[in-house]
């Protein structure tokens, strides 16, 4: 048998047609998101899909790709929002500087929570992240002079922003959407890079078999801490977007219900798929929108649909769709 060179084998394995198009996942995702405001019933809903999509995408890195079920992702979503609001409102930092500062500070928070939680495994990891995220919630509740406590953080409004010398009215929903889409695009590009990187291979190996990954020579605990921080950083960017969008930060976004919603969104859309988080965020928010029109008990219906998904479509909407058109395996 002549041994094929690895180039030949790679060429044989390269997906053709549709698969090749899907290789440009970041550009494709941005193209779809660019159409979103014109497809959804309201611009406000489209902005929320962007924001939650980014938060859930960051979470997907931790849950979908590394296999760590955290119930505390709201802490970083909230941290991004609060740090942005506090930087702008209290310290007069311009918005474009407030965002990276908030992401850095949130990553620091993720390091603190990660150092404690990544030492535990399974249900203990879930519980520790839940408890520490609730701790962040209560700190935000008590430190009212900084955070506005129960009333949420107010007093910072970004109404006009200048982009490359161009004055943009940020109160206009379309302008707002496309500015925030820029952030989402940045987050997607960053996440895609991580997934394609050597470290992206390490987290998948840890998800698949922690013991083997360790025996291969990886420091599993440290790798988990790193991915926990990266995941927190990306989710916190969603928080920054929320703060810019609402001009207030409601205390609720730190609550564990938000963490639970993030978990539901990733499972609805499809964990371990690149665009799944946006599909999950969109489905969840549309469902909430539609069902809450005719009953205040919308959560019953969303919950029931969620159960059906877990039972019958464990790969979520997007993951199942990719499988159906035959590129799911190639994607993973």
């Amino acid at each position, binding site marked *: 048998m002549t041994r094929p060179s690895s180039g030949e084998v790679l060429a044989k394995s390269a997906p053709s047609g549709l698969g090749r198009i899907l290789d440009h996942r970041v550009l494709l995702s941005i193209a779809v998101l660019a159409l979103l405001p014109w497809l959804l019933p309201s611009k406000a809903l489209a902005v929320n899909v962007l924001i939650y999509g980014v938060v859930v995408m960051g979470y997907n890195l931790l849950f979908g790709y590394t296999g760590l079920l955290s119930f505390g992702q709201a802490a970083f979503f909230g941290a991004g929002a609060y740090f942005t609001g506090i930087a702008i409102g209290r310290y007069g930092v311009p918005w474009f500087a407030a965002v990276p500062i908030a992401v850095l500070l949130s990553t620091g928070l993720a390091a603190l929570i990660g150092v404690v939680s990544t030492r535990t495994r399974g249900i203990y990891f879930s519980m520790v992240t839940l408890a520490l995220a609730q701790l962040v919630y209560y700190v935000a509740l008590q430190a009212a002079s900084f955070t506005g406590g129960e009333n949420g953080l107010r007093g910072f409004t970004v109404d006009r922003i200048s982009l490359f010398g161009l004055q943009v009215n940020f109160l206009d929903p379309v302008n707002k959407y496309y500015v925030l889409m820029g952030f989402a695009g940045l987050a997607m590009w960053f996440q895609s890079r991580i997934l394609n990187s050597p470290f992206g291979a390490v987290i*998948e190996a840890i998800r698949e078999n922690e013991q083997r990954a360790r025996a*291969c020579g990886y420091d599993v605990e440290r790798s988990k801490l790193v991915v926990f921080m990266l995941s927190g950083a990306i989710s916190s960017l969603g928080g920054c977007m929320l703060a810019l969008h609402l001009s207030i930060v409601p205390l609720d976004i730190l609550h564990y219900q938000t963490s639970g919603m993030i978990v539901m969104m990733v499972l609805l859309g499809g964990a371990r798929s690149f665009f799944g988080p946006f599909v999950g965020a969109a489905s969840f928010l549309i469902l909430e929108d539609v069902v809450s029109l005719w009953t205040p008990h919308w959560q019953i219906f969303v919950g029931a649909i969620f159960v059906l998904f877990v039972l019958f479509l464990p790969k979520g909407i997007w993951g199942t769709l990719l499988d159906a058109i035959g590129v799911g*395996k190639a994607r993973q």
Partner: protein
Amino acid sequence: MSGELLRAEGIGKRFGGFVALEDITLSFAAGQLTSIIGPNGAGKSTFFNILSGALTPTSGKLHFRGRALNGLPQHRFVHQGISRSYQITNIFPDLSVHENVRVAAQALTVSYDIWRNRARLTELNTRADSALDAVGLLAKRNELAKFLSHGQQRALEIAIALVSEPELLLLDEPTAGMGPEETKDMVALLERLADKRTVLLVEHKMKMVLGLSKRVVVLHHGRLLADGAPYEIRSNPDVRRVYLGQSEGYG
């Protein structure tokens, strides 16, 4: 001994009140295949877990190439040149066969790089493919590991251990659960491996061990019972009493 690679000095391991290993002193020379045998519960797996860093001995010292290994976390053992396979197949089931080996090759050089595209690290790809070639799995490189047959998965695990170019390869029952055909393939593979590197083998199949090994170490109740060439082991009365007598013809 000249060319000594690994030395275990008075290794002991207790789990609570249970003594799994007691006072094991052994030296392994570079470049030969040694088998560790013994009845169930003899302490073979415990000894292996200590040699690969998965367990810390309660007493005693390990020296590898003259360097003490005590206190080193498990993931550093590979970086020292000690690599292992497991008794129960231990692979990355949902990754491709190629990626299983590629990610193992990567551990020695890049772990925390979140920037470069791993598809462009061609040297790692080539190394992974040649390790797959060595165990006869190159044709299966693009399949998911979970779809391989049992024997192929065992071979894949050896490729995973092999790709780090270990100086010491620890194989824990590589033929466990295999039929005669698969066992034959595996024995051929082990013979090829033993040509080039130091291999320590834990095995149950007696005939296979005696045929393959240059040296056989027998453990019994956590203690060293015998140590010598296969023909010495075969005629050792203690070994016959505790082990061979009950399982000769086995495998």
